[in-house]
């Protein structure tokens, strides 16, 4: 029986390997046929910015890897709307189609999960 797993991603890419390593676990959860969704909050929104080039700092490009999520079967891509407002970001800044959620929406999504992790 598939579990509903939400990955709460709140780290910026490149400054540490957190974002990239967390993304690897998201991909594997999807390969295991779990119902996977992702919620970007705070500095994690920077993972979605267009025009990244990780090669400039010898790393893989997180923004490009995120583009593989739909094909891996990750259905829910959510962004914390208050975080976006605070950072001055809008949907046009993101490299993927995402659903913006206010606090009520985030609470609702979290309450649907079996597991929430980072």
């Amino acid at each position: 029986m598939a579990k509903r797993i939400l990955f709460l991603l709140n780290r910026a890419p490149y400054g540490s390997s957190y974002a990239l390593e967390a993304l690897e676990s998201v991909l594997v959860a999807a390969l295991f046929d779990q119902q996977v969704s992702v919620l970007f909050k705070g500095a994690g929104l920077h993972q979605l910015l267009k025009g990244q080039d990780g090669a400039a700092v010898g790393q893989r490009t997180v923004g490009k890897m995120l583009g593989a999520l739909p094909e891996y079967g990750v259905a829910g891509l959510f962004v914390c709307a208050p975080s976006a407002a605070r950072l001055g970001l809008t949907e046009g800044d993101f490299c993927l189609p995402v659903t913006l959620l206010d606090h009520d929406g985030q609470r609702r999504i979290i309450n649907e999960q079996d597991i929430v992790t980072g």
Partner: protein
Amino acid sequence: MATLHVLNKAAAWTDCEPLLGPGDAVLLIEDGVYAARQPLSVDVPIRALDPDVQARGLSGQLAPNVELASFDDFVALVVSHDRVVTWSQ
């Protein structure tokens, strides 16, 4: 469907607080216990992990609605909630 929110940094309170709902509970651990030095005015139960409170010299200085929790209480909280969200940084 209730959630246990575990905070290990005081600053994580800002992220966590707006998402608290009925039936939820908060557990402050590690540097999260510093959040309880200020009044935390929410409707959900708040606990702070006792060894982390003691280590930081905060015994007797916590907001009045914050209760101490042992590791056994930590486990009981995890078991009695449907899921655990860990808030860091």
